[in-house]
C-alpha cells in the first residue's frame, strides 16, 4: 500500500512545477468556492478584459499601434456596455403602454 502510494507520488509530484501547479489549482478552487460570490464583479471584469484584450490583439495585428489598440478596445467596451445598459434600462423602465407589443396596446 505504502509502496504504491510512494510510487504514485514520485511519478506525478516529483517535479517542482507539478507541485506549484497543484498549489495554484487548490488555492484557486478554495478561493472560488469560498469567496466566489464576493469576488463575482472582479471575475466578470477579468473575463470581459480578457475578451477585449483579444479585440486589441486583432487590432494590433492589423497594424494599429499597441497603445492605440488598447485604448480603442477599451472605448469600444465602455460604449457597448453603456449602450446595452441604456437600451435595457429604457425598455424596463418605460411604461408598458408605449413600448409594449401592438396587440397589448390595441385592447
Amino acid at each position, binding site marked *: 500500500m505504502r509502496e504504491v502510494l510512494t510510487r504514485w507520488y514520485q511519478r506525478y509530484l516529483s517535479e517542482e512545477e507539478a507541485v506549484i*501547479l497543484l498549489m495554484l489549482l487548490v488555492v484557486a478552487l478554495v478561493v472560488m468556492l469560498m469567496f466566489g460570490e464576493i469576488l463575482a464583479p472582479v471575475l466578470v471584469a477579468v473575463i470581459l*478584459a480578457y475578451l*477585449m484584450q483579444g479585440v486589441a490583439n486583432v487590432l494590433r495585428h492589423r497594424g494599429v499601434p499597441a497603445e492605440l489598440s488598447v485604448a480603442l478596445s477599451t472605448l469600444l467596451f465602455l460604449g457597448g456596455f453603456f449602450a446595452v445598459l441604456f437600451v435595457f434600462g429604457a425598455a424596463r423602465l418605460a411604461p408598458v403602454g408605449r413600448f409594449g407589443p401592438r*396587440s397589448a396596446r390595441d385592447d
Partner: protein
Amino acid sequence: MIEAGRKVLVTLPEEYPVFFTQQQVNELTAAIQAEMASVGQILVTKGLSSIPSMLAAIVYLILIPLMVFFFLKDREQLVGWFGGFLPEKKPLLDRIWEELNLQFANYARGKGIEVLIIGVASYLVFAVFSLNYAALLGLLVGFSVIVPFIGAMLVTIPVMMVAYFQFGVTPDFYWVVGAYVVIQILDGNVLVPLLFSEAVNLHPVAIVIAVLFFGGLWGLWGVFFAIPLATLVSAILSAWPSSDSLAVS
C-alpha cells in the same frame, strides 16, 4: 397573453361540451386568479426587499467597467505582479497557459460570432412574421447557443408559446416554428462545424458531465462557462508532468 389564455378557457365548454363543463372552467379560472393574487403579493414584497440588491447592482455597474479599464490599461503590470510569485523558468505552466489561451480565444471568438449570427437571424425571421417581442426573443435565442444542448431546447418553449398565443394554430404559427427549426438545424449542422472545426475537441459526454457538474456548483454561470472550464481541466490533465513522460521525451 393571460387575457388570450382566459378567452380560450371560456370558450372551451362551448366548443367541447363533452370534455369540459362550465362549472369546471369557472373553478379553474377562480383558482388561477387566487394564485395570481398571491404571486402579485410575493412580487411586491420581493420588490421591496430587493432594494439593497439593486443598490449593489448599481455599484457593480460602475465597478465593472472601471476594473475592465484598469485591467486593459495596466495588464502588463498586473500580470507581472502575479508572475512574480512563480519561478523564472516554467516550461510546463507556459505550455498549459499557451494551450488554454489558444482554446479560449477560439471558443470565445466562435461563440461570439455564433451568438451574433443566430440572434440577428432569428430576430429578422421573427420581425418578418411580426411576432410579438421579436427583439427579446431574438436575444434569448442568440444567447441560448452558449448553453450546450439544453439551451436550444429551453428557448424553444417561450418562442412556441408567444407564437401560439399570437397566431393560434394557423399557417402563420407553422411558418414561424418552421423557420425557427430551420435556423436551429442550420446552426447545428453548418455554423458549428464551420466555426469550431479545430477548436474544442471534447467528447459530448465530457461536455454533458461538465454542464451538470459546473451547473450544480455555480448555477447558471457554471453552465455558461462549462465548456471553457472543461477545456481547462482537460488541458491540465493532458499536460500534467509524470516521470514516465519525462523519461520518454
